[in-house]
């Protein structure tokens, strides 16, 4: 996404980097603004909306009025909202009667654990599959079909099947919870498989193109083995588009976590979001959504900056 905002002219790396950071801030500001106006544009009583299914008492109403500054002009309310978020205050859940940051914070570790493992697993599987299959016609076709199948299968269905086979039928992995590492295998594999379906074709494309390039012949002529060529040179050349897509995939992991946590009975942000929806806990929902957007934007920016490091030619490249 940030690529689209890249400078039109040839700019130095510093300008390029600061421009990307600037747009990061801008997009974050936009997401915050969007949520603020979503709350205000929603039909009906805003206080009732924010209370959700919590107790609607005059005291709670007074607290909300103070927190959101409801008696003040809209612009002042907006400034207050921005100020609160800048201080890391996502508001209060009136259903749980606790700060949203606390509600999310208590479950964050579990989701982070899941997302990090899934990302690592996805990267590993993608690299493994592509280096072994790129440029090999039959294998490519086979892998391609498998990847398309993975991309076409909903995550919850993959999760249920994995659960059925590797937990119910073959008792290899625990069914539920977030206790030990073994409980992490099936959920993160479910998330990773979904990502592999999208990532592997891209990396393979890149790898195949890299292997067709003249440098590949040069390297090969120096006696480097085929595998060495693929791993040491090909992957590097093919990594930029994959990195972009991977950033996109990582940013979306939070969405996938909702499903996977539900299927595997794992605690985490996804469960927080689902429970918030079922109790109409708008402040918590917005908190989760903002967190997800924040992660997405930051990951995208990091990916962009990483791309600059990997391939400095991209500095200042037009979109």
């Amino acid at each position, binding site marked *: 996404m940030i690529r689209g905002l890249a400078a039109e002219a040839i700019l130095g790396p510093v300008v390029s980097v600061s421009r990307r950071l600037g747009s990061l801030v801008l997009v974050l500001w936009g997401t915050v603004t969007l949520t603020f106006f979503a709350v205000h544009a929603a039909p009906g009583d805003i206080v009732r909306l924010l209370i959700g299914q919590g107790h609607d008492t005059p005291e709670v109403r007074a607290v909300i009025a103070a927190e959101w500054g409801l008696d003040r002009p809209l612009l002042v309310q907006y400034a207050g909202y921005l100020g609160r978020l800048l201080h890391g205050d996502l508001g209060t859940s009136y259903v*749980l009667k606790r700060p949203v940051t606390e509600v999310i914070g208590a479950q964050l570790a*579990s989701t982070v654990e899941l997302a990090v493992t899934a990302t690592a697993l996805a990267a590993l599987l993608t690299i493994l599959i592509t280096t072994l299959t790129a440029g090999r016609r039959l294998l490519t076709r086979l892998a391609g079909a498998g990847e398309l199948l993975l991309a076409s299968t909903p995550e919850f269905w993959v999760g249920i099947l994995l659960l059925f086979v590797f937990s119910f039928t073959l008792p290899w992995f625990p*069914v*539920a919870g*977030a206790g030990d590492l073994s409980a992490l295998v099936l959920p993160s594999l479910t998330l990773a498989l979904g990502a592999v379906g999208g990532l592997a074709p891209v990396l393979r494309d890149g790898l195949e193109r890299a292997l067709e390039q003249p440098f590949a012949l040069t390297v090969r002529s120096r006696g480097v083995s085929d595998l060495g060529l693929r791993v040491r040179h090909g992957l590097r050349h093919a990594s930029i588009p994959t990195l972009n897509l991977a950033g996109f995939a990582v940013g979306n992991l939070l969405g996938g976590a909702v499903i996977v946590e539900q299927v595997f009975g794992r*605690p985490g942000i996804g469960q927080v979001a689902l429970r918030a929806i*079922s109790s109409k806990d708008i402040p918590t929902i917005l908190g989760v959504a903002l967190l997800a957007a924040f992660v997405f934007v930051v990951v995208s920016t990091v990916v962009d900056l990483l791309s600059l490091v990997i391939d400095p030619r991209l500095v200042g490249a037009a979109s």
Partner: protein
Amino acid sequence: MALRTNGVFPGLRRPRVLALGLVVCATLTLSACSDADPGPQAATGQAVPGGSVTWAFEVEPDTINPQLNGQTRVRPLFLNAYESLLTRDARGGYVPLLATDYSVSDDGLVYTFTLRDDVTFSNGEALDAAAVKANFAKLNDPDYDSQAAGQGPLAKLASVDVAGPHQVTFTLTEPYSPFLAYVSSVFLVAPSAYDSPDITAGGPGVAGTGPFVIDSFTEGQEVRLVRRDDYDWAPSIAAHTGPAYLDSVTYRFLPEASVRLGALTSRQVDVIDGLGGNDVEVVKGDDRLEYQSSSTTGSPWSLYLNASAGPTQDIRVREALVAAADVDTILKSVYRGNRERAWSNVNSAEVALYDPALEGTYGNDPALANRLLDEAGWAARDSDGYRVNAAGARLTISIYTTPAFTADSHEVVLQALQAQLRQSAGFHLDIQSVDQGTWIDHFVAVDYGASDNSISGEGATALEWHWLAKEAGGAVNLSNFSDAKTEEWLAQAASSTDPAEQAEAYRALQRYVILEQFLVLPLIEGQSQIAAGRWVHGVAARPYFGEPSNLYDVWRDRA
């Protein structure tokens, strides 16, 4: 919390003298699927202290403050950490717990409790008369619990007085027979809890007197409790004295039935509740597992038809709906014979109030249903097979359900009923799963066609909650129905001191609302079903109430 379908319920029996020292085997109310059930007594012989037990719950508590939570299914958790003045034996007699003795004045207005003098809350505060008084003052504070304060038994409470350091008296405004059961079963918390930030959500800040102490509550995951080593006031119905055997107890929330059962068969958890009909067969067929089922008190799970809104205002439509239903067939298919059909408005475990004469007297008569609907003006059918009236409106009965109160495959039963009523009589049951807030909105606005409900606890109070006018304490009068007859019977039962007279009034009420007014379609008998690994011993149902007991007497094999 508008709906508190849990059970702290007053009863019929008013024994003047406590049956002290009465030991009742908790397994009397427990029918294990195998004769190998050790039972608490057997368990004491070889009990090994230590270790921990994990129990997978189907339903997650929306709060773990025991005074604010209204979910029947999470009560076993509270029984570990919180206690009440009295408890009950298998025959319903009162047994000392935090109170050693009690008396009721001859005019039925003053209840005096003598407290144990050696009990402390887990935070060190002493359980004394002032603490009890503080609890009831708070319970009657609408800011604390806007739904229960000033309602039902609390509405009859004139004052709570400290008569001595360990003696507390409750004075009523008028005689009210269900009061004893209510007051003796309220979970008491340390008064300092009311100033704790944990008070709404519950947690370690809400100290109790039970054999375990709440250590942590992780939303979406679990509640963990640890043993209280200085616990020394187990009631006489327990199998041992002193601290509990287990070091810790974890209640994990696993809403998926398949995941719960899978977790048990793979030994990740030790006990599960919420067994599907098919799961019961799996458990029975696995000799490492034990299936336990016990009848619970209170009212059965039933469908209440709204008499003040929608098509069910017409008594003919109500009669038609009850007639069109073939409950036996549905239960047989959903639960594979592992659930009893309900006929009365109290569970059959309520021997005194249950009316066996109601059995087999209604339902499964589609011809009658169709005739009644034709008469009631719902003669035509639309293209989807639903009945419509002259104005073209569909015969829609809206039912709202909410996950926090839906368990035991009840949603499958409702869907089966939905299909059956459509086929047999052209009813359109519109079942919608909504959040609790929306549910409450519909409830308050009386904007629904029918509503499913059950109350655990005691039948007499369940009937009050179901059939008193809302303003008179009918907290779950889901039929929105009250007339001179129902008022008369309920008043008669509440003020009477003669158990036989009370029972007759309550039975007349049930016959009236089921057979004459067709306000309720009883569906499933209250039943607690759990499955436990055989490596865990002493898991039992609570005497009289039938719900799963706490884990005080439970111990496990050491690996």
